[in-house]
């Protein structure tokens, strides 16, 4: 094949362009990874020195904003109450909805599509608006800022997230399994809870963990609804501290010892999130071995 000189030149330019773009893209990709490492390092750098036994075993004394003594036990316990409660409450709604979509509405494509569309929109509504909505519910039902109000708001926030993740797992179940189950004479309820839930168990666990992670890390929705306190709640009506708000409030304090508490809380929260990601990875690789 013959080359005309100007074509050869344009060829070289093309290859140069490709190489330049490739380097730019490679640099961007590696910088994302670097930013991630930097973020984790900064949080650990500040958080690890602030950690002590006192920090995780005591409630703050002398007020969370001014008191120099004490730790963040109130926030740790509060966060656990809030996110466990919200996850549990949310599962009561989201499991039935996901199953309903994939068993009862399997062949009603328009309805199914419409519900998924609504759920996608809910998925994208930010937590601050769930907080505002939770606040409106509190006004309507004459609730105080409390553990219960926080649990309800968080449950609303994570329900679309859990449904989407569980729904994706259920959609992977072959249609033949449903037909085979009908053929065995099972009721739809038995199919749903005995066969589909078992079949999509890794997906359900992943969905639960994702929801739990969102619930424990979210600040904007509990800001309105749970209040903040130095104490560990003893009933559902008590206001409750939480890790994200412990960070948010105490970071702006002028007192260094109080800021230490914020760093420690940020580090603990990050550790929890890292542990959850790890668990999700383990679950999906372990449990999927038993699936068809």
């Amino acid at each position, binding site marked *: 094949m013959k080359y005309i000189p100007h074509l050869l030149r344009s060829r070289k330019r093309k290859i140069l362009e490709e190489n330049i773009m490739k380097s730019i893209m490679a640099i961007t990709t590696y910088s994302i990874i670097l930013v991630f490492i930097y973020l984790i390092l900064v949080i650990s750098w500040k958080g690890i020195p602030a950690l002590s036994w006192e920090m995780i075993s005591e409630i703050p004394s002398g007020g969370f904003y001014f008191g120099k003594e004490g730790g963040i036990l109130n926030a740790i316990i509060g966060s656990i109450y809030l996110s466990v409660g919200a996850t549990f409450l949310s599962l009561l709604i989201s499991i039935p909805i996901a199953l309903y979509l994939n068993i009862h509405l399997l062949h009603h494509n328009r309805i199914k599509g419409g519900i998924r569309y609504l759920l996608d929109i809910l998925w994208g509504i930010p937590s601050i608006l769930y907080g505002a909505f939770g606040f*409106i519910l509190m006004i309507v039902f004459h609730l105080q800022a409390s553990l219960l109000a926080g649990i309800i708001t968080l449950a609303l926030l994570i329900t679309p997230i859990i449904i989407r993740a569980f729904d994706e797992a259920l959609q992977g179940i072959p249609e033949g399994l449903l037909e085979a189950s009908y053929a065995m004479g099972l009721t739809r309820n038995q199919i749903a809870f005995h066969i589909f839930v078992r079949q999509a168990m890794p997906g359900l666990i992943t969905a639960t963990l994702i929801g739990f992670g969102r619930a424990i890390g979210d600040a904007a929705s509990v800001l309105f609804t749970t209040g903040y306190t130095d104490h560990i709640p003893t009933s559902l009506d008590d206001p409750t501290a939480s890790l994200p708000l412990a960070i948010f409030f105490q970071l702006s304090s002028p007192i260094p010892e109080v800021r230490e508490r914020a760093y420690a809380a940020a580090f603990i929260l990050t550790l929890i999130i890292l542990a959850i990601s790890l668990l*999700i990875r383990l679950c999906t690789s372990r449990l999927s071995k038993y699936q068809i």
Partner: protein
Amino acid sequence: MNREKWIEILSEKWMLLATLLMCMLPLSMGIGLLIESMPLLQQYRLGSLIRNSAWSPAEGKFGMISFIVGTLWVTGLSLCMAAPVSLLVSIYVTQYAKPWLMRTIHIVMDILAGIPSVVYGVWGVLVIVPWISQKLAPTFGYSSSGYCILSGGLVLAVMSIPYILHLQIEIFRTIPIELKEVSLSLGATYWETIKHVLLRQARRGIIASVGLGISKALGETIAVLMVVGNVPQIPENIFQAGYPLPALIANNYGEMMSVPHYLSALMFASLILFLIICLFNSVSHWIIYKINRI
């Protein structure tokens, strides 16, 4: 009737009820916010609320424009950074990178998406704010406390990237390999194939991913609130403080009950946010839905 039958009926009713409740949620959210903002809307004209810049709840002034402008600034800045970066990364990892890099990016993306907003805020306060006040702003001849809309935009960009990236990687993955084969066998280089064929094929998906990124960035609250300065003004440059809508809502939850119409004003701010986000969300999802059907 036997027990099995009862359980069957009960569980079916519960499923239906839960589904209906969930489907009602967006609507009841909108209506709830509208009802709560009615006291303000009856007192003031809608146009003056949106156009005025004076914000002084104690004196009964509820001008929203500086908050709306603040929101647009922060969201715009973050998208200007996050969208090109995610596009470059998603092309690189799906087209050029080795499988290990793809796996690494996936892990990084998952964790970044899971890290709570407030932790990004801490990072922003510790890293971005000092950097801007000590290095970047002086370089450009401005003096800044570092708590400014650029900080908000930067932190928000880092938070939006994993989200947009995830969507874009999916889009590039679903493009059939045959399309690449065609372009390559017509004598295009690999980069030309990406530029002229893949980007064109993916363009609607890219638009949708950016739309979802925008609606995500619009509502992000705590991290932005922590670094953006929170001064109700219309910023003149990116080194000045701003006050986006979500920050306004979150920051005043404590005092809103004591001033007349204050609560209503915050609910009105939520309503504006709700409407904008639902608009971006539903359009973007509509585009994605259309793509998946073809």
